[in-house]
């Protein structure tokens, strides 16, 4: 298992390199130059030359790429073109907000998606089955940002749920959050009031973000459970007189879960990126809003850095999903010919 994981991890390196190159080239092909953007139209030639040299934009493209790679290896994504701050620092600050949101959404999605999928499979062809599968299709068809607005309209306002915006930690507490994951921070401090408040803020964005994975998980659960329910070992279990609940939940569900787990892994990567829209609707200060703001401000170094972090996380999630598949399903032999 371990050598296989390592090999897969190594296999990610060339892909990552290509991704860095692709983003680098794309961002550099953007029309208009960052120097004009920084100085405005009024910059004198001397000023322009100085800024251009500062940013290293006067060097050949290949050298620029080399310098970027060198920084990247040391975890340095360069400096923002517009604000006096390092992109890595900003991303480190934003990442927990996005991760927390995606994680909460995934918990909701798994909880409701699994339940709906199991019920649909057991009650195949019944009204509930049709209803939940129709709802699943509705779930993937509704634009997340619109759903977010509807949620704000229906449940938002101050009570019961604030319409987004992450809790302002500094305004409530004099100690710094240790991890940046506020759920974790609140738990570490045993601060239940804070936890509750924070979860209240998380509620609406998580629900909006959860719809798509919920739909995907419920469909996957239903189809793979239906498949295992039709197999011989399930019939054997029934013939032995095992209760129906146990047949479904122990005998049939366990093998069915293998594909569900893979889907969860893949969807988690998608969630981190899908958060772009949800975060914008709810003014959630995560990576997604950072990308969009940077694009609008033409802060290309920031776009480049954030895009890279999101893409890397996405790849890691896909890798983990792949590895989990092998871990959970003893029939899948890893390490041999894939």
């Amino acid at each position, binding site marked *: 298992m371990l050598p296989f994981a390592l090999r897969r991890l190594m296999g990610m390196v060339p*892909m990552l390199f*290509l*991704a860095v190159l*692709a*983003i680098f080239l*794309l*961002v550099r*092909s*953007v*029309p*208009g130059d960052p120097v004009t953007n920084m100085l405005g139209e009024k910059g004198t030639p001397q000023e322009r030359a100085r800024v251009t040299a500062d940013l290293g934009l006067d060097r050949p493209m290949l050298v620029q790429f080399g310098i970027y790679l060198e920084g990247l290896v040391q975890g340095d994504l360069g400096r923002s073109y517009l604000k006096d701050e390092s992109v890595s620092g900003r991303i480190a600050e934003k990442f927990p907000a996005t991760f927390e949101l995606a994680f909460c959404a995934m918990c909701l999605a798994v909880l409701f998606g699994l339940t709906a999928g199991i019920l649909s499979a057991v009650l195949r062809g019944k009204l509930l089955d049709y209803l939940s599968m*129709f709802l699943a*299709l*509705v779930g*993937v*068809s*509704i*634009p*997340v*940002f*619109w759903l977010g*607005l*509807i949620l*704000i*309209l229906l449940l938002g306002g101050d009570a019961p749920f604030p319409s987004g915006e992450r809790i302002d930690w500094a305004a409530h507490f004099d100690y710094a959050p240790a991890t940046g994951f506020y759920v974790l921070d609140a738990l570490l401090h045993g601060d239940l009031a804070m936890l509750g408040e924070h979860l209240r803020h998380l509620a609406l964005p998580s629900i909006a973000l959860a719809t798509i994975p919920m739909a995907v998980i419920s469909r996957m659960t239903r189809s793979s459970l239906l498949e295992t329910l039709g197999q011989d070992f399930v019939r054997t279990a029934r013939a032995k007189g095992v209760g129906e609940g146990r047949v479904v939940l122990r005998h049939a569900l366990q093998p069915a879960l293998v594909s569900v787990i893979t889907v969860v892994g893949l969807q988690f*990567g*998608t969630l*981190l*990126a*899908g958060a*772009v*829209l949800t975060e*914008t*609707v709810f003014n959630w200060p995560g990576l997604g809003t950072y*990308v*969009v703001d940077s*694009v*609008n401000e033409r802060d*290309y170094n920031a*776009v480049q850095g954030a*895009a890279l972090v*999101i*893409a890397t996380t*996405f*790849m890691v999630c*896909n890798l983990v999903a792949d590895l989990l598949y092998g871990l959970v399903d003893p029939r899948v032999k890893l390490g041999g010919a894939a």
Partner: protein
Amino acid sequence: MSPFRTKAWRRLAAHRMALFGLVLVAVLILCSLAVPLFFSASPRELTGETAFLPPSLAHWFGTDDLGRDLLLRTFAGGRISLFVAFVAVGFSLVIGVPLGLVAGYFGGFVDSAVMRLVDLMLSFPSILLAIVLVTAFGGASLQSLVLSVGIVGIPQFARQVRGEVLALREREFVLAARALGLSRRRILFRHLLPNALGPLTVLTTLRVGTAILEAAGLSFLGLGVEVDQAEWGTMIKAGRETLSQSPWIAIFPGLALSMTVLGFNLFGDGLRDLLDPRERR
């Protein structure tokens, strides 16, 4: 009509979900084409009455911040959203299908080069890739929107077609075609492609729905068409500003958008049931 076709149509008619999806899509397309024609006012024109009117008999969907009729604007928005989605998916097809055909048929170096590219594109979440592409194409405009959504769709088509070709390549009819000395292009497009059309149709239908969503999402982020143009994403973005006072401005375009995407998804799903031999009952 060949007997297969009639049978397929009859099966489609019996598949209620698929039929419902098809009707939904047809109705929304018809409305988008027809509704703006039946009104003398253009969707940009002001009604001359007060802005922010709630839905009423005179204005079924209400009016927006400038007093424009939202029913008109919603269906005019449908024209742009559908146009963007169709052209973008067309673009993905034109690039993705030949890539997949060539990769699957020739294998070897061509195959690995194409598949590396596909993997690279798929290693970016689609919305992120679309955002970066729009930026690289010079920011918000109709062209960059269509191009970005189109490019994002390419890898799925290439991958699907390649898979189909891999499965078909060694079949007798291809061998026969090769033995007859037919040109490669003829084998690819006249013999392999038609046999891969079923799954390709399903993917195309589903992809149109996703393309509509992606385009609207980009517009919502301010990276799509100009704010002034009626497009579902920009309309929802505009409605967001006055959500609590006049929710209808955001609600109706979103409703139209969701119904359209739902229609394509229902229809695509139904088609898959009908065309997939494994699912045939």
